[in-house]
């Protein structure tokens, strides 16, 4: 009898210990990361995931959040709406994540937002986009056209005396939206538009558009082509036609510029992040990224760094709120500031963030050099009703 009592008490003690440790270990805060592991975004997705992992491990190394560990749940959205629906459904209702931080296409975000509304969890969108996406649970820490357009147009007008502009885009909502805003801004500032042309997203032939550019001989060309291949095909065909007008691109990134070789020389780029940003925070970030991923490090970029910032912003908001409760966290997300590689980011302006915008130029070696920075550029009226 005594013997069995002993056994039972030992068993109970073990169970209690196991259960106790389970409380600490089993209750991490889970971040859902829907991202395009396949499809158009699959080129950039690895860098986005690395940025997320770095931010999460930085937070866990300094004691986690509310004494809980932060973990990540990644889901493939296939870079589109149908995939995003599945990804959000599984993250929100099966994995029951505490928040979603998403670098995705506009189509994927629009498909995911109704699921966020139903699931009622905080949501941070981290890709630059066409603006005016408003949802009770959503914050955005990347640029919108209001922040980008003036940067490029003003530079061409003031520093190069440009009067005539030619706009070239891929035929999709973002390309048309951004160039539409550019068109309006040029008119406001007294410039002249000599052409505005669009090519289908998967088009490889720019012959006719290049001919029109040559015929109209603009002072500056501004492009908003879809990331990746269209940037490359357009630039190659433009350069092979010997056109040397000022060329500014909203869509070309540092890495792709490098693969264009000498054809990229002189192209102006605008954005919020370049590896060449000379700040202590950026140096720390790059060092930490290389220390964590070594040779496998993906070059951080305009899409991965906002993701890194967003994870830290979420952590700061949870700390400030003292809970992962949705309403408290969403409120805090508008109030916290994270001083990251892009400079200080605070999503205080109608759920959007005033940002430091950089103007950069590609040199003959294919390296992107920053030629100007503009602090605290306002995103304008995005969600006046939130």
């Amino acid at each position, binding site marked *: 009898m005594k013997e069995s009592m002993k056994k039972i008490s030992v068993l109970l003690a073990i169970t209690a210990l196991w259960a106790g440790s389970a409380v600490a270990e089993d209750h991490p805060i889970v971040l859902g990361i829907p991202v395009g592991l396949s499809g158009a975004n*699959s*080129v950039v997705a690895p860098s986005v995931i690395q940025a997320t992992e770095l931010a999460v491990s930085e937070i866990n190394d300094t004691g986690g959040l509310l004494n809980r560990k932060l973990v990540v749940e990644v889901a493939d959205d296939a870079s589109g709406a149908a995939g995003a629906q599945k990804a959000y459904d599984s993250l929100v209702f099966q994995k029951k994540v505490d928040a979603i931080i998403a670098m995705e296409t506009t189509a994927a975000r629009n498909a995911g937002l109704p699921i966020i509304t139903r699931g009622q969890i905080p949501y941070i969108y981290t890709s630059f986009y066409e603006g005016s996406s408003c949802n009770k649970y959503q914050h955005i820490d990347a640029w919108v056209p209001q922040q980008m357009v003036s940067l490029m147009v003003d530079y061409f007008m003031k520093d190069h005396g440009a009067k005539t502009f030619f706009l070239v885009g891929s*035929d999709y909502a973002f390309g048309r939206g951004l160039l539409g805003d550019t068109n309006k801004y040029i008119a406001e500032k007294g410039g002249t538009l000599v052409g505005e*042309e*669009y*090519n*289908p997203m*998967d*088009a*490889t*032939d*720019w*012959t*006719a*558009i290049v*001919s*029109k550019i*040559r*015929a109209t001989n603009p002072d500056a060309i501004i492009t908003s082509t879809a990331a*990746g*291949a*269209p*940037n*490359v*095909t357009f630039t*190659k*065909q433009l*350069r*092979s*036609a*010997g056109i040397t007008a000022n060329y500014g691109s909203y869509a070309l990134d540092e*890495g*792709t510029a*490098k*693969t*264009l*070789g*000498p054809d990229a020389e002189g192209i102006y780029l605008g954005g919020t992040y370049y590896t060449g940003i000379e700040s202590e925070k950026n140096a720390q970030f790059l060092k930490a990224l290389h220390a964590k991923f070594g040779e496998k490090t993906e070059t951080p970029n305009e899409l991965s760094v906002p993701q890194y910032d967003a994870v830290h912003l979420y952590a700061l908001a949870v700390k400030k709120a003292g809970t992962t409760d949705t309403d408290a966290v969403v409120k805090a997300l508008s109030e916290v500031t994270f001083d990251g590689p892009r400079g200080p980011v605070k999503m205080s302006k109608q759920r959007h963030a005033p940002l430091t915008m950089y103007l950069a130029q590609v040199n003959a070696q294919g390296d992107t050099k920053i030629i100007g920075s503009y602090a605290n550029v306002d995103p304008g009226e995005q969600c006046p009703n939130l």
Partner: protein
Amino acid sequence: MVPVLLDLITTAAILYIVSSGLLLVFGVMKLINFAHGGLMTLGGYAAVIATAMGLNPWIGIPLAAIFGGIVGLGMERVVVRSLYNRPLDAILATWGLSIIIGQIITLVFDRGVHFAEPPIRGVISVLGEPYSTYRLILTALALLLGLGLTAALRGTSLGLSTRAVIMNEDLARGLGINSGLVRSITFTLGSGLAAVAGALITPLSSVDPNMGVAWLISAFMLVLVSGSSLFSLAVASVVLGGAQVVVSNYFGSVLGGMTIAVLAAVILRIRPQGFSYE
């Protein structure tokens, strides 16, 4: 007017270069090689490899021919040969092979864009208009390619056998022509030409694992309206490519991008044999 004319001619030339390998395979084997796009991509990466090794960019083109030829021969031996009597299955199989080529390229390189040094840069003046030198060189190459292939078909005994197989394969075999060998050689040649086309367009195109797919559609349409004749293909390239340039110029590139497909469908509706004169 001069630039539009030059655009028209050079666009037709590029389309001809891109489609000739597909036409050759279709003419002899009566099957559409949907791995054509994958083979073009392979050729594009041959140019990337030539650049990475620091070779003269022109070396990338024979390198592409060798890559494409070897892969084409392998595909014909292992997969395509057993599907000669099942043309629909052959489409599926070659499409599958194209996916495999694309995935292997993704594994070896990555999904991103790669850099290939163009063989030549700059412009020369044509009738007072500065025009891309490389596009003009492509036009000359397209002419050489057309004449070379025609001469090979007309002037060599293999060409004679090939024409016999195109006209009536059963009869040709009855006369002692090894039609299996003719098919094998044609598929290898067609694959090599696809890869060469891929290498040739790298100065105008992004080199990524999907680069060939967009071109495959246009090439497919052109071959459908050309039948099995290299001359019809030239006519089709000028008419459809020209229409694309004109529509893009006057009605915008979004409509221009659909021109070839729409026009090909209309032509086949009115005249099922397309530009083929037989």
